[in-house]
C-alpha cells in the first residue's frame, strides 16, 4: 500500500492533527534514550529509517481500528508511551508507524476498598504517584525514570522501582490489564487477588516490549503511605561483604524497601565525605506501619554490625532521596562531553553475583583503552540473588562508528560474563533491539517458547519487529 493511502486512512480515523508526519518529530521519535544513541547524536548521528507517521491514539476503539488496519496491511508498528526506554526498543524501521499512547492519560479509578488504581497506558507514573499521595496512598513503584515513564511502558518493559525489595517489581504490582492484540482483538484480564486458571496471562504482557500488542489500560496495587521510616547507612571495606550482608538480611525474611550496595567508586563519588578511602556504602530504608520499620531497622543494623560495617547515620539516605532521580534532568550530560556512557543491569543467584561483579570490573578496566570509569551497585535483592547495575563511561574518537565499537566492547564484556555465570542479561531495562542478539543464549531451550508465542500472537510479525527476537 502506498504511504499516502496509509496516511489518508489514519487521518480519517484520528483526524489530521493526530497523524504526525513532520520530519523533525519523526527523527526525534526514531529512537529512545539508549546511551549509545545519545553520544552518537552528539557525533552527528541521524536515523536513516524514519517512520511514516506517528499516531496519537486517544481511545481503545481507535487502537482497535488502527491495529486491524496495520495487521491487514502488514505495517510494522512501534507502540510507545514515555519514550524513556534504554535498549533501542523504540527504534523505527523505515515505513513503520509509531502508535503513541501518551495522550491516553486518564486515571480511571482509585478503588479504596480493593486497594487498586486503574489508569490508561499514557498516565505518567509521577502523576499517578502524586494523585495517590494526596489520598494517603503510594504505588510503591519508584524507578529512577519516575519523571519520564508512563504506565503502559512500565508494564511492557517489566520495570522495577528503587523500593522494590518491599513492594516488588511491576510484575508483583500489576493486577489486571486491557490491551489490543496485533490482530485487532480488544482483550481484558480482570482484577483478582490470585487465581489458578491456567498460565497467568498477564505475563504475556509484562515484558512484551510492544511485540505482542498494545497495552491500553492497567490496574495496579496501591499501598498506604508508610507511617514510619527508618533510614540507615553503613560503610564496608569489601563489596562481597556488602553482598553477604544483604543476602543474610533478605534470607532472614526482612525486606528493607530500599536495599542498596554501592561499590567504592560510586561511594566516593556520591558519599565521599562520609567514608574512608576505598570503602563501599550500604543504604537501607525500612518502612511500613508503626513499629514495623524500627523492628526491621534494628535487625538490619545487627546484621551490618556483625559483619563489622561502620555506621554512617541517616544523612547519606537523605541525600540519596533528594537526588536519586536528578539524572532525568540532564540525560545527555555525558554525551555532551563526548563520552560513551550508559548503564547495564544484570542479575544472578547469590552463588554467582560476586564473581560477575569482580570479573566485569576487572575485564572492563583492563580491556577498554580509554575507559573513564566502570562501577557497580546492587539495588534490587531477593531471597535467591540480586542484581548488579553497572555504570560505565569511556572516551573514543568523535565518530558514530568509534562510539558503537566502544559501546559494543563494554556491553559485550558484561553480557558475556553474565552468561558465563548463568546470570540474566537484563534485570529490568528489557531487551529491546540492542540485547536481542544475546536472547538465544539467555533463554537456551526455552527460546523456542518465545518464538512460538510471538508467531501465535503476531502471525505477520509486525509488532515492534526486532525487539526480543532479532530479525534474521
Amino acid at each position, binding site marked *: 500500500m502506498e504511504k499516502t493511502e496509509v496516511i489518508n486512512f489514519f487521518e480519517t480515523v484520528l483526524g489530521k492533527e493526530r497523524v504526525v508526519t513532520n520530519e523533525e518529530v519523526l527523527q526525534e521519535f526514531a529512537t529512545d534514550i539508549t546511551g549509545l544513541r545519545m553520544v552518537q547524536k552528539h557525533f552527528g548521528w541521524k536515523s536513516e529509517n524514519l517512520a511514516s507517521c506517528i499516531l496519537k491514539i486517544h481511545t481503545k476503539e481507535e487502537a482497535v481500528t488502527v491495529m486491524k488496519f496495520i495487521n491487514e496491511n502488514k505495517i510494522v508498528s512501534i507502540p510507545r508511551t514515555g519514550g524513556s526506554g534504554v535498549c533501542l526498543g523504540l527504534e523505527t524501521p523505515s515505513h513503520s508507524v509509531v502508535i503513541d499512547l501518551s495522550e491516553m492519560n486518564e486515571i480511571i479509578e482509585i478503588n479504596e476498598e480493593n486497594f487498586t488504581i486503574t489508569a490508561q497506558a499514557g498516565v505518567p507514573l509521577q502523576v499517578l504517584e502524586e494523585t495517590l499521595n494526596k489520598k494517603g496512598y503510594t504505588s510503591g513503584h519508584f524507578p529512577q525514570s519516575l519523571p519520564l515513564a508512563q504506565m503502559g511502558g512500565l508494564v511492557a518493559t517489566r520495570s522495577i522501582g528503587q523500593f522494590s525489595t518491599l513492594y516488588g517489581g511491576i510484575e508483583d504490582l500489576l493486577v489486571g490489564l486491557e490491551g489490543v492484540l496485533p490482530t485487532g482483538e480488544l482483550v481484558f484480564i480482570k482484577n483478582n487477588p490470585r487465581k489458578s486458571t491456567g498460565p497467568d496471562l498477564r505475563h504475556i504482557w509484562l515484558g512484551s516490549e510492544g511485540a505482542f500488542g498494545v497495552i491500553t489500560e492497567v490496574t495496579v496495587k496501591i499501598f498506604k503511605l508508610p507511617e514510619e521510616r527508618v533510614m540507615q547507612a553503613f560503610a564496608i571495606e569489601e563489596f562481597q561483604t556488602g553482598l553477604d550482608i544483604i543476602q543474610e538480611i533478605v534470607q532472614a525474611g526482612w525486606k528493607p524497601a530500599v536495599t542498596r550496595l554501592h561499590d567504592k567508586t560510586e561511594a566516593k563519588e556520591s558519599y565521599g565525605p562520609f567514608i574512608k578511602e576505598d570503602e563501599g556504602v550500604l543504604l537501607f530504608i525500612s518502612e511500613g506501619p508503626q513499629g514495623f520499620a524500627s523492628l526491621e531497622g534494628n535487625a538490619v543494623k545487627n546484621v551490618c554490625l556483625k559483619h563489622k560495617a561502620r555506621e554512617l547515620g541517616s544523612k547519606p539516605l537523605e541525600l540519596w532521596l533528594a537526588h536519586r532521580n536528578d539524572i532525568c534532568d540532564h540525560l545527555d550530560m555525558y554525551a*555532551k*562531553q563526548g563520552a560513551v556512557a550508559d548503564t547495564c543491569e544484570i542479575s544472578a543467584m547469590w552463588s554467582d553475583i560476586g564473581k560477575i561483579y569482580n570479573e566485569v570490573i576487572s575485564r572492563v578496566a583492563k580491556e577498554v583503552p580509554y*575507559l573513564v570509569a566502570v562501577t557497580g551497585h546492587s539495588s534490587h535483592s531477593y531471597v535467591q540473588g540480586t542484581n548488579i547495575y553497572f555504570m560505565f563511561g569511556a572516551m573514543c574518537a568523535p565518530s558514530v562508528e568509534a562510539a558503537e565499537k566502544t559501546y559494543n566492547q563494554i556491553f559485550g564484556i558484561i553480557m558475556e560474563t553474565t552468561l558465563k555465570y548463568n546470570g540474566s542479561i537484563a534485570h529490568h531495562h528489557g531487551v529491546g533491539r540492542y540485547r536481542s542478539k544475546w536472547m538465544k543464549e539467555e533463554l537456551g531451550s526455552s527460546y523456542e517458547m518465545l518464538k512460538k508465542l510471538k508467531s501465535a500472537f503476531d502471525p505477520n510479525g509486525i509488532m515492534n519487529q526486532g525487539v526480543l527476537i532479532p530479525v534474521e
Partner: protein
Amino acid sequence: MKIISCIKQVYDLDIVLENDWVVDETTNKINIDYANLIMNPYDETALELMLRITDSSKDIKTEVITIGNKKSEAILRKALAIGVDDATRIEIDHELINNPFNIAKLLHHKIKDDKEVKLVLCGRQSDIFNHGQTGQILAEKLGWSCFTNVFNITYKDSYFNVSRTTSSGIEHIKTNNPLVVTVTQSPNMFLRMATLMNTMKAKQKPINFISKELSEISEDTNEKFYNLEKLTVEKSKKNCIYLNENKNKSINLQLSDLINNSLNKGVK
C-alpha cells in the same frame, strides 16, 4: 608561551539539602561538610577553554594554580589527568584568604616574574563567597588588560580572539597579550573527562608547592583583612501559578500583569 588557569576547590552546592542552609550562630558558618569537594564550575569552563587552545597549538605550555590545603590537590591532579602540563599549589592559612584582594595578591606573586605567561584564565566567580573580583584585581596588579564574562577564547597568529557576553549582547574581540580573562559558564561547555589510565598516571606526577605567609608578600603590612561579621540565609519563596487562557485576558497579558505586580511588591 604559557597559559595559566587559576582553579579553586569548592563544596558541591548542588548536593546540599534545602533545609541545611542554616547559619550556625557561634561559628558563623553553614555546615555543608557532607558535600563532596569539586572544582569550582566556572573554573572548569576556564580550564576547558585553556585545553581547547592547546588542542590546536601544541607548543603552548599550560599550568594550573590553586590556593588551598593538601585536599585541594585533588583538583590539580584532575587537571593533570586531562592534559595540563604543570600544577602548583599555594598553601596559606585559610582565614587570610577569604577575600579576593589577598587571593589576587598571591596569584600575582606567583605569576608576575614568569615572562612566558601570556594569558591567565580565572572563573568569573567561585561558588563560595561569590566575590567575582579576583581576575580583575589580578589584571590590575599585573598591569594587563582584562576581559570579563568570557565564554570562548581562541589563539591565532599571536592574537587572542575573545567572545564575551555583555548586558546588550555579545562582543567578539581580537586582542594582543598578555591578558587576564574571567570566564562565565556556557550551557554546552563541559570539562573533558579523564581516562582511568591518565587518572592513575596523574597520581604520580609532581605538584609544585609554595608555602606563603601573606605578610611575606604584602606591600602594606597594616592592611586590614576582611572580617565576616554576620552571615544570613535568605530563603527564596517558590510559588507556582497556572495561567489559563480566558476571554477577557490573554495569557501574555496575564503574565505581564503578574510580573509587574511582583516587581511592585519588590520581588526580585
